[in-house]
């Protein structure tokens, strides 16, 4: 690890100021991806701005019938939250599949989505539920937030503060984990919402995406069987030592079917 200056601001304003004042400053949330990256000397920030002491960034509350989860809320808290279990149980289930216990105890929602790992779970949940990302500057629809592999719509000095999830009619997440890393080889989040059926896929492509052909089929009939007739193309899907594009395409259907079944 290269050395850096460390800051632990108490307010969002202070954090924003630190970020703006130091060109190579980076935010530190749970650190479960970032610290390993630093250990490998793959990043060399001048300053680390630790968000953990900013009370306003943490917590889970009901809002407008849906949920608002603070950016530094750890996965374990989401998974164990009675509120989340009641309002969007699929999101608690998703949080429960991230990493392992210790990663879930420190890793945060804001950290996960800001990193936008193509195999991370939360992006599927956000896009699948049509969530809104709130930042220090604005609100961004989830679909516009995730822009590419490890890329988001965030500006350099912008900090995710919370995510608002509308309550779906039904939703579920089905994940086929990489047996080694336990990241998603394919993760499919299916939701039936007032605005229609949404199917978000993570792990399979360079960035989370909506599977429109599955959405169309499920809009007509929200049942596992409806997935059978759909053809999912392998074009543009990831290919690595763990899974070919063809296998990923197949798994998208299988996981979609299982998610629909689980959503009930």
């Amino acid at each position: 690890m290269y050395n850096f200056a460390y800051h632990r601001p108490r307010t969002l304003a202070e954090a924003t100021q630190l970020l703006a004042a130091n060109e190579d400053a980076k935010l530190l949330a749970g650190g479960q991806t970032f610290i390993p990256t630093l250990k490998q000397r793959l990043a060399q920030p001048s300053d680390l701005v630790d968000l953990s002491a900013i009370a306003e960034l943490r917590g889970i509350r009901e809002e407008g019938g849906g949920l608002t989860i603070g950016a530094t809320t750890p996965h374990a808290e989401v998974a164990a939250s009675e509120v989340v279990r009641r309002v969007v149980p699929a999101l608690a289930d998703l949080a429960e599949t991230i990493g392992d216990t210790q990663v879930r105890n420190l890793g945060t929602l804001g950290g996960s989505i800001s990193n936008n790992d193509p195999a991370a779970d939360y992006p599927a949940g956000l896009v699948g539920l049509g969530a809104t990302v709130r930042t220090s500057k604005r609100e961004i629809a989830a679909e516009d937030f995730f822009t590419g592999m490890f890329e988001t719509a965030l500006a350099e000095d912008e900090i995710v503060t919370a995510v608002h999830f509308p309550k779906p009619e039904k939703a579920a997440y089905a994940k086929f984990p990489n047996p080694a890393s336990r990241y998603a080889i394919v993760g499919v989040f299916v939701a039936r919402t007032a605005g229609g059926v949404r199917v978000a896929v993570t792990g399979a492509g360079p960035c989370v995406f909506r599977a429109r052909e599955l959405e169309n089929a499920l809009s007509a009939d929200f049942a596992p069987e409806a997935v059978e007739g759909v053809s999912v193309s392998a074009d543009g899907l990831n290919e690595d030592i763990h899974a070919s594009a063809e296998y990923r395409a197949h798994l998208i259907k299988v996981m979609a079917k299982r998610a629909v079944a689980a959503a009930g």
Partner: protein
Amino acid sequence: MAEKGIGAAVPRKEDHRFVTGHGRYTDDINLPNQTHAVFVRSPHAHARITRIDKESALAVPGVIAVFTGADAQADGLGSLICGWMVRSRDGSDMKAAPHPVLAVDRVRYVGDPVAVVIAETLQQARDGAEALEVEYEELPAVTSVDRAHDGPLVHDDVPNNLIYDWELGDAAAVDAAFAKAARVVTQEHVQNRLVPNALEPRAAIGSYDAGSEEFTLYLTSQNPHVHRLVMSAFVAVAPEHKLRVVAPDVGGGFGSKIFIYNEECVVTWASRKIGGRPVKWREERSEAFLCDCHGRDHVTKAELALDAEGNFLALRVTTKANLGAYMSTFSSAVPTYLYATLLAGQYRTPAIYANVRAYYTNTTPVDAYRGAGRPEASFLLETLIDKAAREMGIDRAEIRRRNFIPKDAFPYQTPVALTYDTGDYEATLDRALELADYKGFPARKAEAERRGKLRGIGISCYIEACGIAPSQVAISLGAGVGLWESARIRCTHTGKVQVLTGAHSHGQGHETTFSQLVAEKLGVPYEDVEVIHGDTASTPIGMGTYGSRSLAVGGEAIMRACDKIIAKGAKIAAHLLEASEADIEFEAGVFRVKGTDKQKTIQEVIFTAYVPASYPEGVEPGMDESAFFDPPNFTYPAGTYVCEVEVDPETGTVSIETFVAVDDFGRVINPMVVEGQVHGGLAQGIGQALLEGAVYDDSGQLLTGSYMDYCMPRADDLPSFEVHTSPGTPTATNSMGVKGCGEAGAIGAPAAVINALTDAIGQRVEMPATPERVWRAIRTSSMPQAAE
């Protein structure tokens, strides 16, 4: 049986320090005035080193020194060696290329150490290593053993990269048997390359004392004396009597810590170069993936000839073995004497022929990993036999039974050099089938089908040669050292017993098992026995722990040293009891004049030996005896494993539902420890079958270089196991009747899993049988042309 004697499931002595965080591993040791070393490693699989600019690293704050291969060469450091000579069938010696401790001019695998940077702190050493400018001219590389023969040369003077072309068995007899066979079953398969992954990364601290001119090396080693021998006799780091090697608590080995590696030689040598300050190195896990020897990596074609009734007539095997970029310490023996000699398995196949070609490639060196050659042999036979059974329509248990060496045929000379001493293969098979409810399987399969799952059952009847090794046999086959073991029993005034052993425990629980042995043998309290190991300064010269040898060879040395204690004690007791030595009997810690109540306890006798107020003439004072034991034969643990799997046909995911192991280890000293050894072996065998595989790309980069991509078995990948260790057939090779248990699980498990999977889906999938491979196999199986 004493409460904590032989056969008792005694909880381990060593546990207390480990469960409280007071273990003492190499990385826990910090010596005064210590420096830190980081190795600069080749990022290329094959390249010429065109320039190293030491100044670039020396300019970094805190950097003390930078050494390269040229420095080591200038100081006369020799080559790392492969200690087992294997000769090709044309009589020529294996082509052992030089293996410098730091690369000279050429690098041959990603991770090949090029230089060492020594600094005041670890961070500074890392900074220095990053700053060191090394220029390379890349060369074409070869990584797969299939392409090695015609690939770019890893070592210029080794044509075709061929290290040896070795054979065993009677080719003519095999050809004749194939000519008259009713049936020939053929299989080609890959033995996947594995990364041992002991949880403790390797570490070393070398230091030099200018006053005594002695070197001390703290090291993660399974065999500190072997390290000392090779580092002095071949690498010339230090004279043997001036080098102390200490292997403190060691966090698992599985073979990977047997070998003499570059780094420990370098830090020891470097300490003297920098004026005697200790030099500490601890590898990162990502380094371990690149630099700890890998295991397996064979490509094999096997053919079995059978008569119409399914009797085996002959076996013909052709194997190509990948030994990586350099020949590691025991690498040559693994695909030859530890492999082809086991190809008879538990069966009376009359004719066997094996041809093994070993190749250099631009990959991490390959050497012994738990089982070492024997898992490869067992997998070959047991999957091939399953295929024969399927093709001939014979029940898989029945075809094995038909071909077993009968229990009255021992000692049994196989056609591949070994003489099995004892065994009852039918008994272990019967017991395993009963425990696994083999008969009830069809009902479970039908039930699984109703749930949409494919269920399969697989049998594997393994054998291994353990207790390595009878020295004369090993040396006649090319071993460079004898493989006896040593022990010293040192009694103290107060009747306590110190057991100094040349074996080394890195998880096996020797402190407990050896204490049980000695407590029972000498009749002293278990708590009064202390086992000391792992330090060349205090233990007798020993050959270390590998090949399931610690108890069968090292334990017997302890027993024989105890015999000497008892014999000497009898002389002293006879004197004290005013009886003839011939009239003294010893039992449960008491010397007694036969037929009388006149007796002396062993503690009284020991005290007398040190305080000889009244003492027999001609007997030396003291009670301190040593023994060396060289076994007359290997031991042959064997058993049957039965595995049941369920496959999710939609995803190809395989889950192990049940796993039954019935092992014949002969006599068992501590069943709890023995079962634990089996559990661990099974997990590694299941890992090989379903999860683990090292993958290189064509340029020689290791794609599975961390736990993100190399799949280690986790708790939720495995079931609870059902492990049984009887009925056993004790061996006569040692006085305890023990055979060895450390490797069995890893040897027998892969075939049991793969056979179960094959049974479930209708065709064999290469290891590791990943979900995608299984899914593809299911898809092709359902197509009409499906055939292996």
